[in-house]
């Protein structure tokens, strides 16, 4: 496999409370032959608080990192965090479109940004640059008990003119990747409904209510696990699941995994290596039935042999 290099922006939470996302992204991309380089001395993208204070300021704190990437001679930066992605894309688009805005932003930056960097999500890279076929080739393990509902969260695909990836109403990137690694995907209607976003600390009950809707719809869809691509969603749905249960008087017990963790498991990594033990709701019961792919292929072959004579008879009858 050819070595692909990407500048990878982890973002503040992936170094701390969402460290398992970072772990799984790195391991999975390394398995696929991708080399990740962090931008030198990157800073926080600003996320929700920055754009709630001032738009020039928000674009500047985001564009500072884009300027670093530009200086490194690269024209693409990838990140797993949708908030960072949104900050980068919004800053880039507006600076590219409005010359006046670009001047204002560069005036408060240490290094100017020249609109030369495209930001992409890890999800997009896996789906488009690497492709489901290459993703499927590395699979060594089946997870037969897992029935996932892919939950994308509200901002990774919206608004479509800025985020430029996947359908904003019925995105299919995770569905396709999960299908590629052989995991059963449930048709889930709440793929892009907001989980409560950054209000977890200040408006806890509101977030619990919104998150509970996602969990309910996942259960309705027949899933026993949610896969996510946003660590804030993961935190609201998993770490706060106890809070959700007490606020709503419910008894949810649904693990919430990052899609890269599921991919890593199918590649043969252990739960520890994927950081699954760092989650709140335990996923082990769904994972422990994992087995090598060869076992399933053998079983299917035996079944097919048993069916063969019957199949011939049916064909003869038809004609």
């Amino acid at each position, binding site marked *: 496999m050819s070595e692909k290099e990407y500048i990878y922006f982890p973002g*503040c*939470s992936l*170094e*701390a*409370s*969402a*460290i*398992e996302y970072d772990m799984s992204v790195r391991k999975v991309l390394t398995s696929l032959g991708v080399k990740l380089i962090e931008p030198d*001395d*990157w*800073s*926080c993208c*600003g*996320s*929700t*608080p*920055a*754009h*709630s*204070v*001032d*738009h*020039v*300021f928000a674009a*500047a*704190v985001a564009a*500072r990192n884009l300027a670093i990437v530009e200086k490194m001679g690269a024209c693409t930066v990838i990140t797993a965090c949708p908030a960072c992605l949104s900050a980068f894309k919004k800053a880039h688009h507006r600076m590219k479109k409005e010359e006046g805005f670009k001047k204002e932003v560069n*005036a*408060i930056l*240490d290094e100017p940004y020249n609109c030369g960097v495209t930001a992409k999500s890890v999800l997009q890279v896996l789906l488009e640059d690497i492709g489901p076929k290459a993703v499927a080739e590395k699979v060594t393990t089946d997870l037969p008990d897992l029935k996932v509902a892919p939950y994308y969260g*509200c*901002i990774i695909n*919206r*608004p*479509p003119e800025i985020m430029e990836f996947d359908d*904003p*109403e019925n995105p299919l990137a995770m569905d396709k990747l999960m299908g590629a690694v052989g995991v059963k995907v449930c048709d889930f209607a709440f793929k*892009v*409904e*907001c989980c*409560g*976003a*950054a*209000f*977890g*600390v*200040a*408006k*806890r*009950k*509101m977030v619990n*209510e*919104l998150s509970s809707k996602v969990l309910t719809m996942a259960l309705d869809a027949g899933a026993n696990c949610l896969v996510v691509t946003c660590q804030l969603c993961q935190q609201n749905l998993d*770490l*706060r699941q*106890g*809070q959700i249960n007490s606020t709503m008087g419910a008894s949810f017990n649904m693990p919430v995994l990052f899609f890269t963790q599921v991919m890593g498991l199918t590649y043969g990594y252990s739960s520890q290596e994927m950081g699954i*033990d*760092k989650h*709140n709701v335990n996923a082990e019961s769904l994972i422990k039935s994992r087995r090598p792919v060869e076992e399933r292929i053998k079983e299917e072959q035996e079944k097919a042999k048993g069916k063969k004579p019957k199949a011939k008879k049916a064909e003869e009858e038809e004609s």
Partner: protein
Amino acid sequence: MNKNLLNFFGGGVILKTFVYPKESYMEPINLTEKTDWRFIDQVKKESGQDPALCYQCGNCTAGCPYTKYFDFPVSQVMRLLQAGQKETILNSRSIWLCATCEACTTRCPCEIDIAHIMDVLRIIARRENYVAEKDVKTFYDAFLASMKHHGRVFEVGILMGYNLKSGHLLADADLGPKILGKGKIHFLPTRIKGRDKVLEIFRKSQKKRKNSV
């Protein structure tokens, strides 16, 4: 009566009809005198969006997951903006509870970036000192303070700063045991080399704005 509690259970209509009948919401608005044209222009300029394009179809409200918690659903905020009702808008809680989830912007048939307008209203509210949801502002301030000092965000520091300033001393204390011992919490911040450069960005930006952060 706890205003927050009532609103929480969707009692906004009840509130406005029975509990606070004297509030300006139900009084006839003299549009000749009370339309703040300058405010409409200001929002137009800062957001780059034209509120006249809105034909009040309600699609944004229909898809907004936060409507339940708003005092004015988002299409009504747009209507208030069209009517130039600056005080009502800036005093509202809606603008602080919008999560910028972009559902409205994605579905608006008139191609208005509504989430952006809500953001701009929130920015103007902060600038002019209207803060209907103090805890939300406190959280943002704690986040930005952390960013200002370290260049990156120090999660434990934010939580501590928020708890102290908001007075909710035990907020999310129940999560502590669930997250400790898993290597997910650092007790010391990561300070980047260029944190003075980040600080400069804060300073230069503050020079242009009224409210410091």
